[in-house]
């Protein structure tokens, strides 16, 4: 074990995956740039060569299709979109082709691709440099979605995504890049589809995703001071979803808050709330609360950003509401 940041953990996974498996390569905009994708891929091109770490023309759809084709032909590409917003140009290739290919070929050909869109927001970047659209991809059969919240998971889930036989969307959030945590030096993978309890509690369950899992832990510490015992479930994978862990926790506490950094309508929180309403309704002692972004494009000016983004404070308020 060593203590490194979330960004360093991602970079360490890249280094070890590229070293271990000649089928792995990286392709995407900005991967030769020292600043475009943060420090999470710094100098990989110098270490592994520009043939295996490929910076691309501004062609998101073409680039993603190229990676899909390479995966179909037996490689293990990781395609990087430095902003999730830019990846929308490639939704045709991701949904129509990658997600459907194995099914429509009757299982004859699979697409072991990792698609890594980075969520990067705040800092007055406005609407087209801020979007968190993970819920779109939960909706589509044939693609898995993971969102690590700790350095340990950031490394282990990237490895699991590369090892998976199917398309996996690996979504990291730059708000987490400075998080420090214990990470094993050797390469390891975390099972896709398994959430984790970040904190045990008995009064209320907070199911959270990505940076909102960190915020949920912060909220739980604040709530503890008022004598409220909060259980925090970090989903880690959105698809497949660890329904068992969610239902177990809600069955125990009887109260649920769902916290996500995406929009509310048809968002990840809606799916989780529906799951609990369907399968654990009898255990609920109060209506479910959702903490998610308002249905508004990401604003620019700082006071508007403050009104827009959700943090521990909103989770605390939601917990107090379900307990009142």
């Amino acid at each position, binding site marked *: 074990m060593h203590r490194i940041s979330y960004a360093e953990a991602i970079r360490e996974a890249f280094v070890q995956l590229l070293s271990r498996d000649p089928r792995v390569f990286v392709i995407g905009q900005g991967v030769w740039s020292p600043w475009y994708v943060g420090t999470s891929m710094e100098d990989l091109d110098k270490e592994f060569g520009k043939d295996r770490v490929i910076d691309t023309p501004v062609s998101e759809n073409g680039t993603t299709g190229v990676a899909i084709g390479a995966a179909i032909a037996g490689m293990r590409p990781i395609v990087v979109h430095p902003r999730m917003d830019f990846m929308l140009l490639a939704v045709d*290739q991701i949904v129509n082709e990658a997600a459907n290919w194995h099914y*429509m070929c009757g299982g004859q*050909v699979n697409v072991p691709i990792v698609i890594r869109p980075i969520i990067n927001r705040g800092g007055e970047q406005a609407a087209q440099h801020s979007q968190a659209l993970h819920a779109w991809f939960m909706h589509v059969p044939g693609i898995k979605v993971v969102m690590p919240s700790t350095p340990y998971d950031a490394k282990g889930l990237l490895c699991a995504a590369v090892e998976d036989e199917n398309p996996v969307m690996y979504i990291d959030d730059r708000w987490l890049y400075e998080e420090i945590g214990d990470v094993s030096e050797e390469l390891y993978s975390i099972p896709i589809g398994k959430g984790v309890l970040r904190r045990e509690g008995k009064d209320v369950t907070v199911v959270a995703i990505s940076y909102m899992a960190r915020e949920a832990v912060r909220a739980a510490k604040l709530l503890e001071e008022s004598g409220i015992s909060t259980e925090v479930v970090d989903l880690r994978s959105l698809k497949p979803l660890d329904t068992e862990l969610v239902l177990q926790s809600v069955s125990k506490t009887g109260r649920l808050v769902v916290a996500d950094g995406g929009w509310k309508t048809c968002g990840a929180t809606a799916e989780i709330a529906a799951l609990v309403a369907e399968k654990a309704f009898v255990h609920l002692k109060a209506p479910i609360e959702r903490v998610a972004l308002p249905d508004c494009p990401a604003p620019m000016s700082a006071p508007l950003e403050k009104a827009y983004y959700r943090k521990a404070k909103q989770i605390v308020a939601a917990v107090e509401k379900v307990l009142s």
Partner: protein
Amino acid sequence: MSYDISVELQLRLYGTMLRIRIFEERVVDLLEANEIKCPTHLYIGQEAIAAGVCVALRQDDYIFGTHRSHGHYLAKGGDMKQMMAELFGKRTGCSKGRGGSMHLVAPEVGLLSTAPLVSGTIPIAVGAALASKLRAEDRVSVVFFGDGVVDEGVFYESMNFAALKKLAVIFVCENNFFATHLHISERRVRDNIVKISDIYGMPGVRVDGNNAVEVYYAADRAIARARGGAGPTLLECRTYRWRGHVGPKWDLDVGLRRKQELPKWLAKDPIVRLKKHLLEDGAVSLEELKRLSADIEQEVEESITKARQASRPKEEELMDYVFRENKGQESHLAQD
């Protein structure tokens, strides 16, 4: 037109075209009898392109196709029985009844699937070529597509990337002048698809797509160039689809142009042209060609019988193949 290739090669081109034609003419019957129900886009009239290109390829070369790919599947060596069963929606189909006519796959001969969304397989073929390059293999990747593809942006993204990285891709445009119902003159200012290659510094070759020998020559040169590491080529093969966009009808109601154009193209039947040459040349007797035709007819009938007898997928198998199970097994084409 020069025919200075061996009689054996000419017969392979002829047999490949005839096999596609006879197969599809029977598919027409089965569509009209409502035995085949999935949307089916016929290749009749365009057979010289699939034959000319695929006869020039190696079995381990990759090809990708479109919604109109019965011809590509057969020409590359895909199993006829499995394709017929797929059209019938049977479990024994090449795509296990999950794909139908628009999703044909035969990985054992390099067909890594066909897909109908216009331009969808273009970057994918480029990616397969990138895989070959990264593995230092000399496999070539071919993508067949209609003229509608040049209206899509991702075509240009893919051409650029392939040229930039000198990838072994052959872009084979089957210019049949129609994107579903709309004639090329209603979609583009100029009839100059072949010139798109200039922008990316790759060779562009316009060929008579109803002449299998001419297509073979052009493909052979492009393939040799790609295999040698010199990069991609754009082939524009000018042809005409006899039947409508989808199904067995003739689409004569699609503007006045088709009514005027179709008879001229029927007279340029690629199969009749090569047959005439083979006979005039004395390379082969009419009896031999008749025997070839009878053999293919029998093969097609057998594929229909098998397809009729095969079982349908079961309802409880609906969710099979959504994901591939992770058992530590590697992709079918993975290198060790």
